[in-house]
């Protein structure tokens, strides 16, 4: 097999791992609160800036900066829920979508105000690994493993903790759970915090691979939502698998064509999927 194609496939899987975290976070929030956070990628951007700021400006060690980004963005998720989403829970879904779209502008503008429009680089790079002529970036591989670990931790949280089970129950049936003694408002806050923390984790994995700038959210935000919808909004496993599918489409597309066309193909594929299976690829 052509080593370059093989490399593209490997990179596609690694890219899928990176897409997977924001997709899981978005899906978690949607499944529980029934609101799409249009500003999800901007939460990731804030996390990236936080890591960059703490590491390069405040000289914190990298792992401490990572450890700080998770709760920070998690807190941001809670604030987003309490200030913007909660008052709109009874409003038409489109209003919620647009309000979080407003937050997108706020975070983008805020980042520009505080950090300017320069590209900020963390300047961390692991040596590439070689295996039968196939080169894989060490940084990407590490990020991929961390993404899988994050997904596994989320799965364990949802599977084994009381609040995790309550989250899954609310996502399954919004009407019945309050009757069973679960306070949905508390579950919403917890889900928002976890959704935010996942954005923080995604930020840690992205900031080592990409330079951060105020508009970076626009580069992976749209594809994140598309993956969520493709997997079926609120369907965690579907979203997780769709992330890898999208990663493969993007990376092989750029192998055969160029980067922009690979995204065009990915988005066109998304639209085709919605027409074919409006409730997502993996809807039951």
């Amino acid at each position, binding site marked *: 097999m052509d080593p370059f194609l093989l490399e593209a496939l490997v990179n596609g899987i690694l890219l899928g791992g990176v897409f997977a975290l924001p997709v899981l976070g978005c899906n978690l929030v949607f499944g529980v609160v029934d609101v*799409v956070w249009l500003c999800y990628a901007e939460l990731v951007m804030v996390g990236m800036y936080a890591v960059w700021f703490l590491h390069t400006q405040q000289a914190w060690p990298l792992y401490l900066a990572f450890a700080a980004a998770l709760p920070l963005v998690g807190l941001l998720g809670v604030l987003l829920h309490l200030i913007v989403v909660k008052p709109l829970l009874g*409003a*038409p879904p489109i209003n919620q979508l647009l309000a979080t779209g*407003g937050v997108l*502008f706020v975070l*983008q503008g805020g980042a520009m105000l505080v950090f300017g429009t320069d590209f900020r680089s963390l300047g961390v790079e692991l040596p590439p690994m070689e295996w039968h002529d196939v080169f894989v970036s060490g940084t990407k591989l590490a990020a991929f493993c961390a993404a899988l670990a994050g997904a596994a931790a989320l799965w364990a949280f949802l599977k084994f903790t009381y609040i995790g089970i309550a989250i899954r129950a609310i996502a399954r049936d919004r009407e019945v759970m309050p009757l069973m003694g679960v306070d949905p408002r508390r579950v919403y806050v917890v889900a928002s915090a976890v959704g935010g923390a996942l954005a923080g984790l995604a930020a840690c994995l992205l900031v080592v691979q990409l330079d951060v700038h105020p508009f970076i959210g626009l580069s992976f935000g749209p594809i994140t939502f598309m993956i969520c919808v493709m997997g079926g*909004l609120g369907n965690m496993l579907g979203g997780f698998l769709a992330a890898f599918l999208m990663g493969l489409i993007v990376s092989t597309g750029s192998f055969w064509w160029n980067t922009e066309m690979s*995204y*065009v193909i990915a988005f066109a594929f998304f639209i085709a999927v919605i027409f074919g299976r409006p409730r997502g690829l993996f809807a039951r």
Partner: protein
Amino acid sequence: MNLALAAFVLLLAAVPLLGTPDYFLHLGVTSMLMAVSGTGWAMMGRFGLVSLGHGAFIGTAAYVMAMLWNEVGVTPWLGLPIGVAAAMLLAFLLGYPCFRLRVVGHYFALVTLAAGEIVRLLIVALREHTGGSLGMTPRLAPDAPFLAMQFSKTGFWWMALLVWVFALLVWWWLDRSMASRALAAINEDQDAAASIGIHVTREKLRVTIISAGIAALGGALGAQYRLYLNPESLAGIGISLQIVFGAIAGGMYSMLGPSVGAVFTIGLEELLRVGFGTVFIGAAPFAYGILLVLFILFLPRGIVGFLLRKR
């Protein structure tokens, strides 16, 4: 109401004759064209058909028009209608399967978002013809400015005014038609509407195509006015959300709402730009976003909707 509006339009038509400084003419033209796009968006937005991809239509129309002029030499007077027709065709191709297969709500919003991104990325990818992310300028024709649709701010003022009045007329016509009742019913309950004989797909498709056409007309004319096209400012998520913001801020349920919203957003942008200069470069989107959130939280019917309710 209609008489007052007619008088207001006449007054607007006289503005360039009164020696108004170029700066205010520029703001006026920009606002009117933004108002056209917002009005177009709100035609479907007010019936719960929320598109986050109107940039797709604007980008298509603007680039078709500019490329016809640059590569083939077709005058924008023809290129603009062709571009708008292309945008309407795109709306049909996108809308038909969406409505036929009942892609609604979040799903519809995200499909249109994807469409906007596809158009933006295609413009970037076809950089040999479109100039990619660097943008493109329509070829200047100083010897035939009329043919090239390259005239002064005064000329564009009247063009913009004309197009704006046209958009309002389309709104008025749509509002009085049966289609508007049918769409309101569909918005309430699609199945119930279908059961009393409303052709759901056809009604939605028609309003989507009209909406895309009007929005594309305003956006493409704006590109011709600035003589600069750029994928980020004409297609994609940024411009799509800006149109939505203008329409929401002004109020998408009344005819003049999106226009008020356009004046409001452009006035706000200018105020922030003049007030803060280039020191606080992110101040505009920041204030923008906060206001958008506040509007949705406290004034979901927009400025005009609020004023009309008070009365």
